């Protein structure tokens, strides 16, 4: 009982902190719009980490992720007049970053497709997937530390289309609501739901041979019980 009231108390505290941050964000936005350029600094310093995490998971490399973060803030600053003061600045900037990351991924794909040669494709196809299967099946945590599996996971993520990767990152890692994902993908909620489904399905097909039944037991032991996903922070 005591624990329950404590947990209710800490939830209230967290909500109070979030609400204070939102108010402080709103104030910073107002001051920036009034011509105080340095007020924008508060927003940049507060939300950079979150945007970097999203951008890195979407683009898969640090250089692009940093560029996405910077560009997202530049765009947010330029279009701050369009930002409704009642909205959450974090969510708004997050959406700008996600949109820019999608554009960036599409650009890169076009460039890569232009550069790729038949010989390099043939080399890729010749690689035997069995070579990548570890002899002993370690736990998922160890597997993630395993460079080969990590490469395999990164490759599998790269194989997703930019919409699928965005949907997966936003849903699985960032815990965004389907409506939020649909807004970024500029699609309907049912289309966004299908995109999440397709991404999980593709990742499963690509990675299941490398993450075996023992991994499944470890995942279960780690308490990865299915919980309905919340909304984006």
């Amino acid at each position, binding site marked *: 009982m005591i624990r329950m009231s404590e947990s209710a108390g800490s939830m209230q505290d967290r909500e109070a902190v979030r609400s204070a941050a939102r108010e402080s964000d709103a104030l910073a936005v107002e001051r*920036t*719009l009034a*011509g105080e*350029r340095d007020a*924008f*600094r508060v927003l*940049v310093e*507060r*939300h*950079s*980490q979150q945007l*970097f*995490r999203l951008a*890195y998971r979407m683009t898969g490399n640090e250089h692009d992720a*940093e560029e996405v973060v*910077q560009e997202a*803030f*530049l765009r947010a*600053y*330029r*279009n*701050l*007049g*369009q*930002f409704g003061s009642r909205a959450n600045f974090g969510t708004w900037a997050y959406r700008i970053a996600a949109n820019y990351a999608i554009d960036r991924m599409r650009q890169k794909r076009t460039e890569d497709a232009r550069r790729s040669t038949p010989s390099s494709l043939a080399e890729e196809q010749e690689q035997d997937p069995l070579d990548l299967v570890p002899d002993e099946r370690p736990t*998922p*945590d160890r*597997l*993630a*530390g395993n460079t080969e*599996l*990590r490469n395999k*996971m*990164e490759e599998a993520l790269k194989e997703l289309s930019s919409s699928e990767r965005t949907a997966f990152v936003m*849903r*699985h890692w960032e815990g965004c609501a*389907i409506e939020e994902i649909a807004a970024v993908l500029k699609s309907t909620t049912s289309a966004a739901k299908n995109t*999440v*489904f397709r991404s*999980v*399905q593709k*990742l*499963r097909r690509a*990675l*299941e041979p490398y*993450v*075996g*039944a023992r*991994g*499944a*037991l*470890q*995942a*279960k032991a*780690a308490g*990865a019980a*299915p*919980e*309905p*996903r919340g909304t984006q922070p």
Partner: protein
Amino acid sequence: MKHLTEEELIGYREGETTQREAIAEHLTSCSACRAELDRLEAVLHALDNLPVPERGPEYGRAVWQQIAPRLPDKAGRGWRTWLEPRRWVAIGAMAAIVIAAFVAGRWSKPKDSESPAASVAQVRERVLIVAVGEHLGKSEMVLMELANATPPAPGQKQINISAEQRRAEDLLDANRLYRETAKQDGDAALASVLDDLERVLMDVAHSPQEVTPAELDTIRQRIEAHGILFKVRVVGKELQEKQKTTNSAPAATESKARERNKA
């Protein structure tokens, strides 16, 4: 017993199905479906452990330092930047080209063998060739200046590239218009080069006004990585040739564009 589909399992795992209770009940009694869910969990759990590089507490400050020099004086102006005088100069120049193309098309006498529509199209193409050629020339100049910028004097830590940056920003608007026109005309090769050029111009336009030698090197590397200077020169040369050809003997434009796209 009917087993759960993969879609239902994924939906359940991602918290998106309406029949959560029924699925949960099925999972308690069906070991096959439970094992299937465990395998799915294992993959997602492994992905959960994919690391994201750490960014220290100073990261936000570093981002601010990077973007602060690139921020306009006033926030939230959006479309109002189009009202800046220098934008009007670019827009005016573009409008003049379009009007010139239209007037030239109206007043040029079609040859007996040609239809008036074909003649107008040729004149329009000629004007565009001149305009795009000029645009590529200007872009080449900006990129050349950056590529060959003199290293800073001893003791000088920053290099001012604000002039190049502003010119790149001005060229961006024209570039977008020409790229769209090339796309509409089916000239994929030109559209592709203009697309590459746009990215490099955007990089330059979004750089700080004063850069360190290392930052200038990064900009140079980006220019080199795209091979854009070479592409711009080749297309510029090609346009010059085309200009000569269209002046002397105008020919069917679409077939030429198609040939070039094939190449």
